[in-house]
């Protein structure tokens, strides 16, 4: 069914090829930045997940599915699973303290003069991140694979 003239991924787009290589780490780094600052500034797991997924999708368009699968190492469905797992796990510490399911738990401490805020909320947000990345990549990868 494959018609060579009807391929989305052209193999000879040098600019996109090179740009995607450089942009991927930057975009991923940016997505992590958005994720971590999300509780106080614009950002958060959902937005960061979209940015992260966008980074990989760009790479996928430039280099194709196989190359993308190689650099991802994880199957996107596993990322989805990790996300759901983290989201669910973050709900339980509250029960141990006798609070209602999903109540946020915070551990705030000083590390060399910097205030570090750890919480179940952060775990939950990371779960959101992975779930979003996993969902989008699952859909995009299977669509592209169906194409080939």
């Amino acid at each position, binding site marked *: 069914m494959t018609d060579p003239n009807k391929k989305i991924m052209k193999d000879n787009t040098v600019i996109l090829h090179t740009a995607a290589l450089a942009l991927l780490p930057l975009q991923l780094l940016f997505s992590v930045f958005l994720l971590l600052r999300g*509780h106080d500034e*614009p950002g*958060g797991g*959902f937005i960061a997940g979209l940015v992260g997924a966008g980074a990989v999708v760009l790479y996928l368009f430039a280099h194709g599915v196989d190359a993308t699968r190689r650099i991802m190492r994880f199957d996107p469905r596993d990322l989805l699973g990790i996300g759901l797992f983290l989201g669910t796990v973050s709900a339980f510490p509250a029960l141990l303290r006798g609070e209602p399911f*999903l109540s*946020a738990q915070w551990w705030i401490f000083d590390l060399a003069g910097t205030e570090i805020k750890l919480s179940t*909320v952060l775990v939950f947000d990371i779960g*959101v991140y992975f779930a979003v990345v*996993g969902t989008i990549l699952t859909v995009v990868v299977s669509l592209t*694979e169906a194409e080939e």
Partner: protein
Amino acid sequence: MLYAVLSGFVVAALVPWLHWLFRSHIGWVLAVLPASLTVYFASMIPAVSGGEIIFQQWAWFPGMDIHLGFTLDGLSLLFALLISFIGTFVMIYAGGYLKGHPALGRFFVVMLSFMASMLGLVLSDNLIALFVFWELTSITSYLLIGFNHDNEDARKCALQGLFVSVIGGFFLLVGMMLLGIYGGTYSIAELLTDSGDWMSAAPVALIIICVLGGTFTKSAQFPFHFWLPNAMAAPTPVSAYLHSATMVKAGVYLMARLNPAFGEEMLWTLALTGFGAVTMFVGAWLSYTHTDAKKVLAYSTVMALGTLTMLIGIGTHYAMIAFSAFLLGHSLYKGALFMIAGAIDHEAGTKDLSRLGGLRKLMPWTAAAALVAALSLAGVPPLFGFIGKELMLEAALSAGPLQALALTLAVVSAMLTAAIAAVIALKPFYGPRLDTPKKPHEAPLSMLAGPVVLAAVSLLFGLVPGLPETMLVTAAVTAVAGVPLDFYLSLWHGFNLPLLLSAVGLSGGALLFFWWDRSREPLRRLMDRLDRFAPETGYFKALDGIVWLCDWQTRLLQNGKMGNYMIVLVMTTVVVVGYTLAAQHGIRFTLDWQDINFYEMAIVALLMVTAVFATTTRSRLGAVATMGVLGFMVALIFILFSAPDLGITQVLVETLTVILLVLVLFRLPGFARYSTLFEIFRDGFVAVSFGLLMTMLVLATLDARMFEPISSYFIEAAYPEALGRNIVNVILVDFRSLDTLGELFVLGIAALGVYSMLKLRAEKLND
């Protein structure tokens, strides 16, 4: 008592490991649990027979008046003891019967879960908790009937049992909710103590019909009796336990439990006596016409269930005593007989009574146990069954308006029962030795223990009737009758009418037994002709009707055209929401043009232009691109009104949507117009009305502030309570995190759906 009930579930969860550890001895190991429960409940006998009612309660859903409250009075104790005592031997028996079966572990998981649910059912004081256990028994019964699920017949029979009892369960739930609403409580004890107060205002007839809908289906009363013989597709230990001794008595239990409240109602009395008597006769008759040992026993169980229902309906003191004695007697001998039938089937390879004979020398213990249990079934002194039957006939004599019916059917059923008892006890073991598929030999110890002990207990209770009387029956009768009664059980009541009727029954039974061989052929032809009128035919007709209805509505609603789905969804929303809006708020709004900046106007103008272009363009790519532009415009609006998070999200989602659309677009055929002019106008109308509705809705919400908006709370509480300054994020991951968690799973399911659809298609293409 909570632990007594829950222990079954806990051990059930451990079975896979226990099975791995003990292998073929698993039956003996698991029998320890019901055995210790028997001891536990037996230790309560002195207190309960002394008139005490033990009550323990744990809050479950306290806000909804649903508690795990367990009551132990005479009736519950009788049932709890039967469940755990017979359960002990059934576990041992099943270990032998299913020895080496690959799914033995699964079998015991369900079996123990059933036992725990059944205990919960008879001990629960709360109606809702009782209902939960009730349905659990239906589900475990379904799993057990369909245990050999690679057999299509077993699956069908399992489903039939499930359908019948679950539909009944639905009625029961309605009845229970009505009881709760009018009685003001879900506690059975409280409902029974002040039944006079609430019943005057309640729709008692409706409640009774709903409750009976549940109990009649569960206890296989006519015309719902057909599922029980079909349930014999289950392995024999299941038939012995669920479908004779315990589960099918749940309906009888509930009727007995509620009898103190409804006992005075005419409808209750007539329905129970009438249906009970008919069920008793139909069961006995069908039992006589069959030759498959398990079917014979199943129909005779139907007969017994009918008898019990009739006795509750008659409602006199004698009937209550007869009820308790008959219940006890039946569970003992019927459990034993089923296990014997299973043993014969297991050792000889057939359970067709017309093909068995002369096994007495080969299976002496089984033969002896069968003889004792069958004598109890026939109601021959000095077995306990005789006492039960004697009392039953005595009660039928006082059956009020239905006396003639009840008495005639009782005597005829007694004859038929005596005949089948003789068939079961004598046919396989005496007479000429007939060829069987397997070379028969005595059953192993695990399969003998149950029948022998249960038969021995039948004999013991018959010889010393004072024993069950003081321990169990008196307290049970008190619970069913609602008031304490004075009586004593004995074998000898003097020369009276019941004794005469008993003798008539036995001699009639003897005659019928001698005709048994000769009557097979004509009976079979008669039953074939009657088949058309059997209630089961109605069941199949109803099933066909449901399938037809589903066909019809699927063709109507699920026709696979995206456009139609959209029209239905959108127009339903427009009509329902539009009506509500017009009725509640009216079509009015205030427009304020003052605050609008020119750049906002510009964005809106652009939005409108792109929207028009998107709907009229003839290029698919163009439409997708303009949809993207629309999205970015909306994002711009978010940013202008200082909602950066929403803006960013919108931009990202738009980008990814365009990418996805491009990927999909690639697979679509060329663009062409398929719609007729009418369809274009119809779709246009739908779209415009939806757009109008949404606009009106937004304007109306601006106008009508019925509540203080919650956003101010979020703004205030975000930092102090959730330690975050980004309110959107705080709402997503803290305040409303349960919603987000739900959304995550929705995302996951959607992704897996897309994945499996694409992969499935790819596989099909490859084939």
